[in-house]
């Protein structure tokens, strides 16, 4: 039954929610505005808001000094590649854990999560030495594999909690009809799990996109993604706020836009089993 909502109440909630939403979003907004200012305007006292000479000179300066297309390509390849590889390995595992749980299933799951506790810098030298041994330093494949390994526990966990919500009877029915295990996964489970898988993919693309330790230390040129691109523009000599802002916007815009367009899918599956 619908609760009586007075328009006044609705307007009040709207105002409050918009106020807080804008406040949370403000740093991004401010970076965006600053990226179109001249360096001097960027630090003017008092700060200027919308009325200033909008300029794109910072973007051209950033583009002239660095290989943005390459960094962008690398970011996309690494984020998407590591996520898809992770999904490929995680789907069967999560399926098995959800539908054929054994005594140890929970332990295995928790153990997987605990591998994420490994402090990256502690294993930096071993990893660099291994990568050098296989001759894969500064290669996309290395980062795809490493970021896949880092995020795999999260992927398995998300898929597991999502699969568990799928009623077992449906699978039983399919099995009665004589569907093979493979067909069961492909034709019955996957369509039902699409929202969960989509959400998992999105979340892990974001996590991989934003990873800023391995992507900086294991790359030089060929595989260097946007996280490293940003390091060229932090704290150089002289005024740099506007150029830093432009570089920042260039680094976050693709993922931000992807996030906005897919937020419904992202939100729908983002429960980690928190809702029963």
């Amino acid at each position, binding site marked *: 039954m619908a609760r009586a909502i007075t328009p006044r109440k609705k307007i009040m909630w709207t105002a409050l929610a918009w106020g807080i939403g804008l406040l949370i979003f403000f740093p991004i907004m401010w970076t965006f505005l600053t990226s179109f200012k001249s360096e001097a305007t960027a630090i003017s006292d008092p700060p200027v808001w919308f009325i200033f000479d909008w300029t794109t000179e910072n973007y051209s300066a950033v583009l002239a000094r660095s290989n943005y297309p390459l960094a962008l390509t690398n970011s996309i390849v690494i984020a998407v590649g590591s996520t898809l590889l992770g999904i490929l390995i995680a789907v069967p595992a999560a399926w098995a854990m959800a539908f054929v749980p054994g005594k140890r299933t929970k332990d295995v799951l928790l153990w997987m999560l605990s591998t994420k506790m490994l402090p990256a810098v502690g294993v930096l030298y071993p990893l660099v030495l291994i990568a050098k041994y296989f001759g894969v330093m500064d290669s996309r494949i290395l980062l795809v594999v490493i970021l896949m390994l880092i995020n795999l526990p999260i992927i398995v966990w998300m898929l597991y909690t999502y699969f568990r919500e799928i009623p077992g009877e449906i699978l039983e029915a399919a099995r009665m009809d004589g569907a093979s295990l493979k067909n069961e996964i492909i034709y019955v489970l996957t369509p039902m799990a699409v929202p969960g898988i989509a959400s998992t993919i999105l979340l892990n693309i974001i996590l991989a996109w934003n990873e800023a330790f391995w992507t900086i*230390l294991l790359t030089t040129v060929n595989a260097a993604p946007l996280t490293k691109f940003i390091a*060229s523009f932090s*704290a150089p000599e002289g005024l740099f706020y506007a150029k830093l802002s432009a570089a920042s916007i260039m680094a976050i815009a693709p993922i931000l836009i992807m996030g906005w367009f897919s937020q419904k899918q992202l939100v729908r599956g983002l429960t980690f089993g928190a809702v029963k």
Partner: protein
Amino acid sequence: MNTKQILRGTTVGLGLMVGLASAAMAEEITIATVNNGDMVRMQSLAPQWEQATGNKINWVVLEENVLRQNVTTDISTGGGQYDVMTIGTYEAPIWGANDWLVSLNDGMAEDWDADDLLPAIRGGLTVDGTLYAAPFYGESSMVMYRTDLMEKAGLEMPEAPTWQFIREAAAAMTDRDNDINGICARGKAGWGENMAFLSAMANSFGARWFDMDWNAQFDSPEWKETLTFYLDMMNESGPAGAANNGFNENLTLFQQGKCGMWIDATVAASFVTNPADSTVADKVGFALAPDTGLGKRGNWLWAWSLAIPASSEKVDVAKDFISWATGKGYTELVAENEGWANVPPGTRTSLYENQAYLDAAPFAEMTLKSINSADPQNPSVQEVPYTGIQFVAIPEFAGIATQVGQLFSDALAGNRSADEALNAAQELTTEEMEAAGY
């Protein structure tokens, strides 16, 4: 034609082809450098070298801390990712002694002229007669001050001021209502940030890092005097966020007209006098770094330099690039494009004999004096077992000094007293030096 002749002909032909091929084959080299203004300029001029030689450069331009992360990991694991690395006077001798760098004694372009390098700078990059890095720009430190504010305060800056004068002048120039701080100096923690400033300052107060038996000296009265003086001066006349200010932050402040005086790298002189960036370009004067009358001035010596890691497989091309970037021709190229005042300073004697440069750069004379008066072999008033002015040329220094720098930065922020900071520094340094086997 007999077989021999045919063979000979073929050999010559092959030889010719190989020769031609190698001349025409474009090599790709990877260069890691800092995102400082002079290096960014080098990056923008480098296409000229690329066109002239047919080679291609992959640039890795990073902020200083991230650059250090990357190059140290690479060099100490023999990673071989870079063909040219930008390093400083601290790293060059240590890495050179480990045979991690390629000697630049030979193989450089003929007109490169190593003998033209300033002796102090060259000495800092040489180990046992082997030059391990070519200086791109060199610097000492000096006082940069606002002539208008000095006049307003009714004072006159001597060419060689004392710390006492600096402190008094700073107090007189400070005008908090108009956002003018008498003195700007490094406060941000780091061995290359506040510890560079404080170690050099400590030398002029008669303090030293270690005695002849490598015992830490932070419990000495000289260090206490240094730190107390620094904290008092900065609290009286320094900017509000001094504990977070490094070179870049102070540069911005000075360019905005918020500093009366700034004691820092001589290389900053061309930035603060550049009307394009600085609001106070025509009101800047220069003086030697201060002293306390003990015979040592608080000025350091540093050179951002280009070196080739031993793991590089393209040493010849790398040497060709370094010859170009640190040679006299590059200086002229910059002068042509950006004006003489913007050429990378502090590396070559010939630059300071060039009238065009001396006319364009009012800071040239003071820069040269500062560099020449820096003595890394005898940095302090007292005897020391190490070389280096604002650093101690041992591998453990960077780690220790960064932690000590954090303590002193904390003291500047008012989170602990000078005594507490010094005690903790003494304990920490002793601990680390013992662990290192001294």
